């Protein structure tokens, strides 16, 4: 289960639509925290727990570990 694909490229908050019997979890792609219900989907489709993590990904993580790191 994940975010509806048609919405995935539009940045914004999405609700995870868990089925009652599905008990697995997903994690924020920046900090690693569990995302229990609301997920922030970034412009490139990455899923974060908050907008702050989206920002951290771009200002902290990419410059250090991304393909164009210095």
């Amino acid at each position, binding site marked *: 289960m994940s975010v509806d694909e048609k919405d995935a490229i539009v940045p914004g908050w999405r609700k995870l639509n*868990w089925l009652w019997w599905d*008990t*697995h*979890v997903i*994690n924020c792609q*920046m*900090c*690693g*925290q*569990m995302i*229990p*219900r*609301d997920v922030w989907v970034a412009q490139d489709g990455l899923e974060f727990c908050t907008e702050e993590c989206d920002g*951290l990904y771009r200002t*902290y*993580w990419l410059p*250090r*570990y991304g393909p164009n790191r210095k």
Partner: protein
Amino acid sequence: MTGTPNGTDQVTLNVVYNRLVGICKEMGSTMMRAAYSPIFSESLDFSCVVFDRDGVMLAQSEFSPAQVGAIRFVVKWLIAEIGDDMLKPGDVVIHNDPYRGGVHMPEHVVIKAVYFEDEIFGYVANIAHMSEIGGLAPGGFAATATEVYQEGLRLPPVWLMRGGEYVQDIWRVIMTNHRAPRYSWGDLHAMLASLNVAERRLQEVLETYGAEGLSTICADLMAHAERWMRAEIRAMPDGEYYFEDSISNATDPPQEDWFRLRVVIDGGGVIADFTGSDPQGLHVMNCTYGVTASAVYNAVLQLVDNDIPHNDGVYRPITVIAPPGTVVNVIEPGASVAGNTETHPRLWAIVLGALAQAVPERAAAATGGSSSNFLFGGTHPDTDQYYVHYHLEGVGWGGRADADGNSNQVVPNGNCPNTPVEIFETRYPFVQTAYRLRRDSGGPGKHRGGLSTERIMEVRTDDITVSAVFNGMVKKPRGLFGAGGGATSELTVKRAGTDQFLTFRDAFGTRSNSRFANIRLTHGDQVMIRTPGGGGYGLPWERDVELVRQDVEEDFVSVAAAASDYGVVMMESDGEFTVDNRATAARRAEMLAAAGEEE
């Protein structure tokens, strides 16, 4: 005025904060008095917390600091997952899912919504280490597990109580899967009792201030804590600090998992970034996100003012990056039961190792870093009932800039007293034949590492099943700034009728000496536990000569180690120890010269 957003005065902030903390402490007292298992009543392995209606932590009592980071997340995520509209008065929700913010499978969180004037004001919660949860080995520590399914009964968020009534299906599942259901029944009721006490007390506070008034004060309390914390961090030098270390499995050859940490201090905020740490392993040392966050919080809190209120505000300046699927953030189906007891103190030491570069005067050397978990169970010969016990031991703590490390204390993240000998022998068929400090176990340094312990226990029953998870058996706990490491841990067994202690690998063919499960012992077998010592701080030959002499007199340090490690040459006469000043000066000059050549 306190400069808080709503202008709550300092007196009111203090009064309300202490009332909230008092609620948490009363929860703990209830747990301690009502529990069936020593891990609650003696070891206090639980934490009690009050939250607002969004799951934001208002106050806590850290009986076990290992859980502080976890419970900050676990309740918020639980409420978000199930939805507060699904709750009604008298409901209690339980879960122990390590992937949902828990610290490891034995820790069960229970939460109850607190209503005021027909609305949810907030939640009271308790996270506690249950002594038996089924799974591969008695005692809830499946030491050789490679996946979560071997670690015991895993509960996703489910209702334990509905409207104050038992949800009997869940209780029957729990009682069927735990080896000692009578204890689980009693301990779960102790947890429920603590929630009921907290519910009443929080409602009393609400009667005084009203929901809106209390919310306003709590918002100011959190802003106050955050501002204070940021000021403390701002006082540390900005910069990036890197540190790495590993844990080892005492196999032949030893297996290692590496943890890599970059700490960024920048203008009142801290980022603890574990990117680059090893992938999660097929073992129990993996950490959940909650464990890793707790380790970071505990380390940072050690370096700042003790008086900062411990609510959500104090944690806001700290960001923890723990990539999923690694040893610092296990994902399904990875095992993780010892991540909280063994890896947590190592992570804590790694954070301090990084921060020691920024604030060397406040950091400490590594602690013994192992809860030295020894688990056992069986049918008691006196009662014919199944018993289990989770035994933990004290270790040496690391030396500090201004003091030696503490001796025989459980790892700092655990803060759990161990079970007194009298309780131990009354309840379980083991007799203690020795329990003492280990000479020369503290890492040599200007400030010596704390001493660890040695305990020998003899089996007094025909059949007992034991398991263990230790750390620090391969690598010494690290010293800081030129000091030596603490002693490594040892776990050995002497079979009845023999005269030699052997490792469990030599005696039983276990793959590892530090992690094994389900070894059966019998009458007369003896187990010896030697825990790891703390690392030292600063150059050993700079330790005050008189302190070394006192250490020898107290039997903390041997005459030989005084000379070889500290450069203090001693002479003994009729039990009196005196220092040979000339030989000491020469020996210390040699050590200094040798250190200079190494550099």
